[in-house]
């Protein structure tokens, strides 16, 4: 791509040329190269695929000629725990858990002969049925993947892939056929609401920015994604960076800005790499920079890396960081859209919000508004994680029930355990108990039950999760991530954490209930920023819906889910022990007494309750119980071995 595009016609011409060069019947092997699959060894699989294809003479020595087999690195499709993921086109056969050793067979059978390697297909855990296409998998079947589906087909490091799928067509339409005010009207009509957490009407924010006095104006992308458990922005930016860039430019044109910033968290190095490459390639094509597509519109964008602070995702903190100061929130009563970066009108939106914009422009505001619920239009990408069978990124229409999300798509609770609660919205969200499972997910419904949409994290918990422990985890997280400037948040979280530490150690007091409630209210009313005002949502919702667990911890010194270490003991049932010594070997403090012929006994004085022995035992002989433990059996009892199976 040497020539810069200087008109919509040239863009279309380029698009047709790229498509014409591509044989729809050509064999393409796509493999996910994103962070998730890389953690499971995808890079070796990709190298191995490339080697296999070369070995068989299916590609030339230098580069890939258009009539040969191509190995393409693509983005994240969200079902990360089954990675590395390989899909062979044009049949669209999806293979999961691919190892380097599997690649010769994939190439020789599927690529050369068009035959399917059954063992690498997804098999339904209950029926055993194999899925020949992605859509046959229950996890994918119920999704509506408007934003994520192109991750399967795009190499994020090749702008041609994005163009081939219609990319930059929306920008072209906006620059040459629409006035800025028209664009804003369209976004307002679509009812798009911010996908970063606040759910603020995007069109209104754009309008405020446009009308605010002051030049220059700025547009910003929030890819800080600090909520632990959320990774949808990573998948979008890593897998399809151009979709975000296109949306950003459309917004910039609408608001009258010519400069943008993309704030990416430091923990996503591959995302930084991919967006940087995308920017360079777009610039080389004339799709970014000066006189974009010959329209006279200029836009340049800078990537700014975060440095490991959850609070820096807050809008005023993010802008402070870009200004070169420490990323702390500032006490402000004027919207960032009016006075933001360097006191100029600045529009900050989340990655997913920007990615929706080109779709709205191409398909129309009505199309978008008609999807979802009355007040929350479109789709939302959720990060469904925790104790569900199918974890990963799920893109669904707003309005799906929690029950469908968790049981139809998520496949229900792992190990057949009982559902206990689902937590949405990250550390700022609340626990939602079983009785609300039929609520239709949208911004307002979640707020009504005391939680919030947040960035889309959905953490499922089962009977083995201790709600008090998880609440303590969130308070601990927030106390360290808080900037620490204001008293209610810093000192409030400090003291709330002190209370939780006592409760989880069996030192809870009756007065703790009132103290937690008082402090929660203080943070909500008097904190400087949204981190503080939402910090106690987990505390409040857990006290409301799971008060029984707190009462057990405080009044009975008992942890019902048997998680809190100080309130749990491990006990080896003498009649089940087979004296295999696996547990004693795994014990980090040598607290298990017994040899290969005698029943093992745990010395409760030494035991640190780490649970390693519980994990190791193959005979289900070790029980987790609430103290007091039964008196220890006599030492040195000889084991009665169960007969070996035939």
């Amino acid at each position, binding site marked *: 791509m040497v020539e810069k595009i200087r008109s919509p016609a040239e863009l279309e011409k380029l698009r047709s040329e790229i498509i014409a060069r591509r044989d729809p019947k050509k064999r393409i092997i796509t493999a996910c190269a994103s962070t998730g699959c890389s953690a499971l060894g995808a890079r070796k699989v990709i190298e191995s695929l490339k080697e296999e294809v070369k070995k068989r003479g299916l590609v030339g020595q230098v580069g890939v000629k258009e009539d040969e087999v191509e190995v393409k690195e693509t983005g994240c499709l969200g079902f990360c725990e089954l990675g590395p993921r390989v899909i062979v086109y044009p049949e669209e056969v999806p293979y999961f858990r691919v190892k380097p050793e599997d690649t010769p067979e994939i190439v020789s059978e599927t690529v050369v002969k068009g035959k399917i390697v059954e063992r690498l297909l997804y098999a339904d855990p209950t029926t055993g049925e194999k899925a020949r296409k992605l859509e046959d998998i229950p996890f994918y079947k119920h999704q509506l993947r408007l934003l994520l589906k192109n991750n399967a087909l795009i190499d994020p490091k090749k702008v041609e892939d994005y163009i081939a799928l219609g990319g930059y067509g929306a920008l072209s339409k906006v620059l040459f056929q629409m006035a800025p005010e028209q664009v804003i009207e369209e976004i307002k009509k679509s009812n798009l609401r911010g996908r970063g957490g606040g759910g603020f009407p995007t069109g209104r924010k754009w309008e405020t920015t446009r009308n605010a006095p002051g030049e220059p104006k700025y547009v910003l992308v929030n890819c800080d994604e600090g909520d632990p458990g959320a990774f949808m922005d990573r998948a979008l930016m890593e897998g399809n960076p151009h979709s975000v860039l296109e949306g950003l430019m459309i917004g910039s044109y609408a608001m009258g800005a010519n400069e943008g910033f993309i704030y990416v968290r430091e923990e996503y190095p591959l995302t930084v790499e991919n967006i940087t490459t995308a920017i360079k390639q777009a610039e080389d094509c004339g799709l970014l920079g000066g006189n974009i597509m010959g329209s006279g519109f200029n836009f340049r964008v800078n990537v700014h890396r975060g440095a490991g*602070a959850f*609070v820096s995702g807050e809008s005023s903190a993010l802008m402070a960081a870009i200004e070169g100061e420490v990323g*702390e929130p*500032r*006490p*402000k*009563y004027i919207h960032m859209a009016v006075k933001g970066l360097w006191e100029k009108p600045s529009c900050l939106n989340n990655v997913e919000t920007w990615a929706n914009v080109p779709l709205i422009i191409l398909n129309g505001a009505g199309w978008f508004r008609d999807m979802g619920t009355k007040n929350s239009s479109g789709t939302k990408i959720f990060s469904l994680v925790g104790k569900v069978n199918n974890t990963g990124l799920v893109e669904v229409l707003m309005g799906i029930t929690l029950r469908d999300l968790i049981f139809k798509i998520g496949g229900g609770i792992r190990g057949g355990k009982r559902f206990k609660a689902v937590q949405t919205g990250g550390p700022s969200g609340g626990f939602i108990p079983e009785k609300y499972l039929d609520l239709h997910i949208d911004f307002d419904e979640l707020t009504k039950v005391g939680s919030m949409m947040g960035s889309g994290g959905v953490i499922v918990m089962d009977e083995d999760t201790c709600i008090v422990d998880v609440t303590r985890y969130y308070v601990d997280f*927030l*106390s*360290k*991530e*808080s*900037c*620490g*400037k*204001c*008293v*209610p948040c*810093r*000192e*409030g*979280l*400090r*003291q709330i*954490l*002190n209370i939780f530490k006592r409760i989880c150690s069996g030192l809870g007091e009756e*007065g703790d209930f009132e*103290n937690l409630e*008082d*402090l929660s209210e*203080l943070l909500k*009313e*008097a*904190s*400087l920023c949204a981190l503080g005002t939402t910090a106690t949502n987990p505390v409040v919702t857990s006290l409301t819906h799971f008060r029984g667990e707190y009462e057990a911890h405080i009044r009975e010194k008992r942890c019902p889910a048997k998680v809190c270490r100080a309130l749990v003991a491990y006990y080896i049932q003498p009649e089940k022990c087979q004296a295999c010594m696996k547990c004693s070997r795994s014990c980090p403090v040598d607290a298990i007494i017994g040899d290969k012929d005698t029943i093992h006994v745990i010395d409760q004085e030494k035991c640190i309750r780490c649970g390693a022995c519980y994990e190791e035992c193959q005979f289900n002989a070790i029980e987790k119980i609430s103290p007091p433990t039964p008196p220890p059996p006599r030492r040195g009892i000889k084991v009665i071995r169960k007969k070996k199976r035939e």
Partner: protein
Amino acid sequence: MVREISLKIDGKEIKAREGMTILQAAKAKGIEIPTLCYDEQLKPYGACRLCTVEIVKEGRRRMVVSCVYPAEEGLEVEANNEKVRKIRRLILELLLPLLPPPSDTVTGPIETLAEKYGVKKSRFKAELTNCTLCGHCVRYCTEVKKANAICFIGRGTERQIAFVPELAPNHCLACRECFSLCPTSKMVDSVEGIRGVCSLSIPISEKIKGK
């Protein structure tokens, strides 16, 4: 020409100059709102939240800090209602654990305020850092003296104020003007009495507490 505006504080109609904050408008008319991190010489910080007041605007109620929120035409401010007083009492309950136990000789501004709001002792666990992180010292050194010798370090519950002995002595003017701004008894000369090395000294090699 600065416009004059009128607003209501606790039912009383008062006049203020445009550009003033609620706190400034109140102070000018002798209406008392408690503060800790506020100082006339320094930019408003909005961190202690003691000056929180409830405003009523276009029928909606909201809690804001009066040291930052601008005085607006027609604004209704409730600076002493029960909700606001409860917030102040709780904040004081959170500040007391940071201070050494009450003594007859020391009655700083925080202890005085606590007494005024009826907070005799705190329900919460003592921390005894003797620092409320109000930032007077840091902000004064940066904004007024422009010496930038002391700084905030860390974040969250591990946030502290530090005089880094390996670097700060080259910048500290040893004016000790920061000492008198401190609401607690924290700021004193170090035992060694070495120029510029005060009680905030935290060497680089010493880890930030808890990290």
